[in-house]
């Protein structure tokens, strides 16, 4: 604190010739935090890859079943049996063997058949972004030439579907539910929080009591109870939207309380009084002076809360209370993977876990960096 005394006077004014707005300063500070930038880049690429172009990134279509039931990941080779090096990686053909005694399936490589893996290969047809027809895939083996070949970098599930493809497609729902849910939470939470803090009185009382009640409810059990109440016969999409609404419904209370607290303190700031003394309307004070003051806080809270949403979806679906089978989300994938039997027989299905972890880690890295850059508490 004593350092501040030494450094503040008039220092910034002369140094920067170009005026910097608050957000420009934030960006400048944020850029310097490498971990946070890394988190941001990871998230951008995840969202771009999983939400917009999973069809292109995956070698197969989501429901491309095959005979290779519960096959382990196929190994990529660069060196063939004769010790020759290939720049282009290849896979061997796979042969299924059934041990009649133990009733266990095993797969062995047939080194006589070699299938090169190519980039930008034509395969299953799909519609990019829902309307651009295409059959281009980032990688894969040529299906037309070798229909019996398959590449499963993360193994296959009980229907012989490529697990990596399923993870890519599952990311779309899981990532979006966090984002949409959080946007709804912000809308609910901010509106009610601002009203509660600015108007006070009865409105404040009602909103306060409601948030207290939501707080008293243990949140995961509340999710579970609410999710369990979704009728089983609803269409998967309806279930998805219902779940998003539930997620944001349970979470808005906390945000509303924080926004209310901020508004209460901002309301007494002298610049708000100055606007008031100039005759500004309630709407102007709320939207021009109070809300922008809470934005940095809200952004930080929201960024750090999204992983919680994603996890809630994952946990609920994993428990069988959220999204259900025809839909593919990371939680649904976990349902298959997370049994003692599955860990014994198909451990590669746990590949879903690292994807979830990296997403959550990236959000935390980003959020932590944003907190420093936005400096919501105004300590610097």
């Amino acid at each position, binding site marked *: 604190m004593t350092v501040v005394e030494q450094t503040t006077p008039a220092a910034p004014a002369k140094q920067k010739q170009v005026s910097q707005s608050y957000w420009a300063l934030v960006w400048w500070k944020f850029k310097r935090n490498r971990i946070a930038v890394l988190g941001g880049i990871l998230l951008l690429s995840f969202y771009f890859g999983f939400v917009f172009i999973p069809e292109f990134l995956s070698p197969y279509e989501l429901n491309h079943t095959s005979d290779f039931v519960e096959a382990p990941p196929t190994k990529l080779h660069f060196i063939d049996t004769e010790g020759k090096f290939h720049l282009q990686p290849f896979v061997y053909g796979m042969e299924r063997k059934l041990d009649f005694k133990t009733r266990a399936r095993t797969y062995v490589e047939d080194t006589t058949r070699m299938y090169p893996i190519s980039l930008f290969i034509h395969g299953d047809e799909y519609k990019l972004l829902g309307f651009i027809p295409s059959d281009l895939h980032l990688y894969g083996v040529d299906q037309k030439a070798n229909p019996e070949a398959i590449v499963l970098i993360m193994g296959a599930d009980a229907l012989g579907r490529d697990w990596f493809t399923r993870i890519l497609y599952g990311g779309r729902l899981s990532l979006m539910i966090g984002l949409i849910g959080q946007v709804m939470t912000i809308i609910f939470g901010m509106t009610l929080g601002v009203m509660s803090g600015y108007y006070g009185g009865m409105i404040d009382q009602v909103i306060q009591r409601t948030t207290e009640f939501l707080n008293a409810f243990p949140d995961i059990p509340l999710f579970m109870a609410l999710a369990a109440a979704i009728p089983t016969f609803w269409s998967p999409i309806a279930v998805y939207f219902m779940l998003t609404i539930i997620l944001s419904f349970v979470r808005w209370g906390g945000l509303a309380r924080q926004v209310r607290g901020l508004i209460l303190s901002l309301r007494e700031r*002298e610049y708000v009084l*100055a606007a008031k003394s100039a005759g500004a309307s309630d709407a102007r004070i709320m939207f021009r002076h109070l809300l922008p003051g809470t934005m940095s806080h809200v952004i930080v809270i929201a960024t750090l809360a999204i992983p919680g949403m994603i996890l809630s979806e994952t946990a609920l679906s994993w428990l069988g209370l959220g999204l259900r089978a025809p839909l593919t989300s990371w939680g649904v994938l976990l349902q298959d993977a997370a049994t003692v039997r599955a860990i014994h027989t198909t451990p590669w299905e746990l590949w879903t876990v690292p994807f979830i972890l990296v997403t959550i880690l990236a959000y935390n890295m980003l959020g932590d960096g944003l907190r420093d850059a936005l400096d919501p508490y105004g300590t610097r």
Partner: protein
Amino acid sequence: MAPDMQTQTTEAKAKPRNLLEVKGLKKYFPIQKGLLRKTVGYVKAVDDVNFFVREGETLGLVGESGCGKSTAGRSIIRLYEPTAGDVLFRSRHLGGEGNGLINLMGLPPDKMKTIRKEISMVFQDPINSLNPRMTVSDIVGEPMFIHGQRMGPETEAVIVNLLERVGLRPDHLRRYPHEFSGGQRQRIGIARALSLNPQLVICDEPVSALDVSIQAQTLNLLQDLQQDFNLSYIFVAHDLSVVQHISDRVAVMYVGKVAEIADAEELYSAPLHPYTEALLSAVPKADPLYKSDRIVMQGDVADPSNPPSGCYFHPRCRYAQEVCKLKNPELRELKPDHFVACHRAEELKLEGI
């Protein structure tokens, strides 16, 4: 109406008319406790305050922390809705009844908004009083925007003019508050207060947070502007020497009440209230030769939520008698234009500076 007013002003040059009269102003903040937020008492921040401001003059409002001087200033323009009292104001835009004064209390919002053009405020904290997300042009232009002027070259010209008037450069227009020093920020605040061409500016401790050298610059600026724009000031501060310097008349407040009001020179040289005397004596003088018998007031400033009986100052007053414990003294005009709230004002011989 306008020419009529002008002739009046010239005639009454000897003694300008009252621009503002505050009568019985009270602001109580409720103290709430418990689950049901039951009101268990009040902080009587402003408790029956009376004073007036003449056209073109500066009234200093001085007192120690918690005496209600800032609350009084803010209650006048209803930033805090007063609990009771009247604030009469001579508006240029709205005609008043009888003596030309209009009561701001209970004025409907649209009319109050008009009044806000004529009374503006300058705040204490050079960091807190400017919205960090707005440029100087937005900040200074905001009052004009609120009152219906759209941003354009014309408005911008006005803003540039204002900035130059307070000693800032036109190229500061697009900058943000954090790029300025404390003194410059205070100038931005002053430019904002002048943007609607007000008659009365309430300055709420405008120099308390500034360094000595910057404080002098700001005080000089305020004085110049008063001349140029024919402004009246209510100058709220705790520094007695600053208040003396800038004020024509001074009101001393103690625990929500006015103890004494008089012409600045008279108040400082011949105070009538023991609190004024003690306060003046307590101020450290920037003169090592000055050795006086300091009157050291004992104890702390009374608690406005639980003030003592009778005269609030009696527990710390060295002249206190029985009557002071029992009766609350009225503010009365002992000499022309010299008001005091003390039972013993006539008999006491008090020393000024």
